[in-house]
């Protein structure tokens, strides 16, 4: 509710026109900088629409069978409908015996045994028929492994939480989403502090925003490292065991969207660092805080985009 600044003195009850209801004429003042940043954000809406819209359309057009729990993305599945997958949950005490069994399968590539073992507890060996799958399973069991046999399941798009087709770490990213939301709160508190003339508090909240934003970026870099280099995934996710942009349409969509969002976060952290340094040197006051306000608008927009990206890329 809009109150006149002199409200502390207290208008007399019934004195007309002193205490007024919020009306459109009392909206925040329009400054050139604010118009410019909103215009920029409108173009950013179209930028992310290009990305998110392409994702929606490509995903909606992805045919059933593009992903499966046994074969790498986009493997032609005609003739493979009766496949079974032997899923290696644990290799047991003797790794060399398991390797020996896996290497004895004649039609495999030489490094496939290592790949399958590296992906345990989701190491998948596809077999063309139930008989072959059962034979392999019992050979692995007698070598001390824990295995399951699964039928072929096909998907239009990798299903969240299904470790056979989707590598994304939802728990980590949900926590990271919360981290980014917290940085938006510290940002708005920094603006609120300087509007009240509290420079020290404003600087501290700006520092918190830069730190929390950097934490978000670090977690994302960690996640990329896990996906692309460190972790080994089963064959349903990637042919070579690593989730890299070239391994599927899902992967290239994921890296394009989260990567370009990450660049926006990076730009935001850099801009906020400049504002933070200016704030440390006393550049802002209760009547001069436009840089904080405008950088904040950009930062909140980046947070808003992440809220949408997290939902549609990770959870759906």
């Amino acid at each position, binding site marked *: 509710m809009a109150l006149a600044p002199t409200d502390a003195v207290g208008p007399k009850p019934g004195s007309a026109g002193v205490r007024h209801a919020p009306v459109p004429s009392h909206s925040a003042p329009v400054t050139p900088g604010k118009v410019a940043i909103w215009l920029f*954000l409108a173009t950013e809406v179209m930028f992310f629409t290009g990305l998110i819209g392409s994702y929606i359309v490509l995903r*909606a*057009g992805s045919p059933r069978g593009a992903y499966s729990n046994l074969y790498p993305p986009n493997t032609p599945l005609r003739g493979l409908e009766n496949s079974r997958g032997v899923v290696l949950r644990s290799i047991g005490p003797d790794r060399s015996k398991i390797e020996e069994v896996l290497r004895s399968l004649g039609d495999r590539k030489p490094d496939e045994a290592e790949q399958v073992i590296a992906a345990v507890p989701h190491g998948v060996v596809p077999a063309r028929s139930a008989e072959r799958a059962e034979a392999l399973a019992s050979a692995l069991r007698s070598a001390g492994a824990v295995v399951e046999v699964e039928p072929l399941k096909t998907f239009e798009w990798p299903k969240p939480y299904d470790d056979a087709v989707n590598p994304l770490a939802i728990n980590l990213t949900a926590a990271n989403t919360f981290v980014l*939301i917290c940085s938006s709160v510290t940002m*708005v508190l920094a603006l609120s502090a300087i509007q009240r003339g509290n420079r020290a508090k404003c600087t501290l909240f700006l520092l918190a925003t830069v730190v929390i934003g950097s934490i978000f970026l670090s977690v994302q870099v960690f996640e990329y490292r896990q996906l692309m280099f460190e972790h080994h995934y089963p064959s349903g996710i990637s042919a070579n065991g690593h989730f890299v942009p070239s391994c599927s349409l899902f992967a290239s969509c994921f890296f394009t969207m989260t990567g370009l969002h990450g660049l926006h976060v990076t730009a935001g952290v850099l801009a906020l660092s400049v504002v933070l340094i200016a704030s440390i040197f006393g550049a802002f006051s209760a*009547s*001069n805080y436009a*840089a904080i306000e405008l950088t904040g*608008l950009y930062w909140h927009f980046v947070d808003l985009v992440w809220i949408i990206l997290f*939902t549609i890329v990770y959870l759906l």
Partner: protein
Amino acid sequence: MTDTRVLSPSEVAEEHQQEAHAPYLMVWLWLAGLTGIEYVYAAGLKDFFLILLGGLLALAAIKAALVAWYFMHLKFEGKWVYLLILPALFLAVVLVLALIPDLAMQPADPEGDHVRVEPVRSDVEMARRIPMLATDRPA
């Protein structure tokens, strides 16, 4: 940085009165709570795609609206902001709806689920499937 110098002292004071006292911590609690609900909802209903889609999009829209309304101060801005944002949002929807038929509404498979559609293996094959993109389309 010089923007606020064009404001009169009473305008500045009024902006402070409104913006500096908005319920930011309450909004933060809501955003945190909604993120938690989203997480549990997604884990619990992962096998029901349409319920998942509707619920999660609604939750994401509420969260995005909270950020825009309180943190981006839409609550305090005049109509001019909407003149910038609404056309962009409208065009965003049009762009997606206009592209959906090209890729997502391919002819139905006459024999049902038993015959699988060959997956797309390369950009060239993708181009062949989408007549608009094809360069070697039959006459």
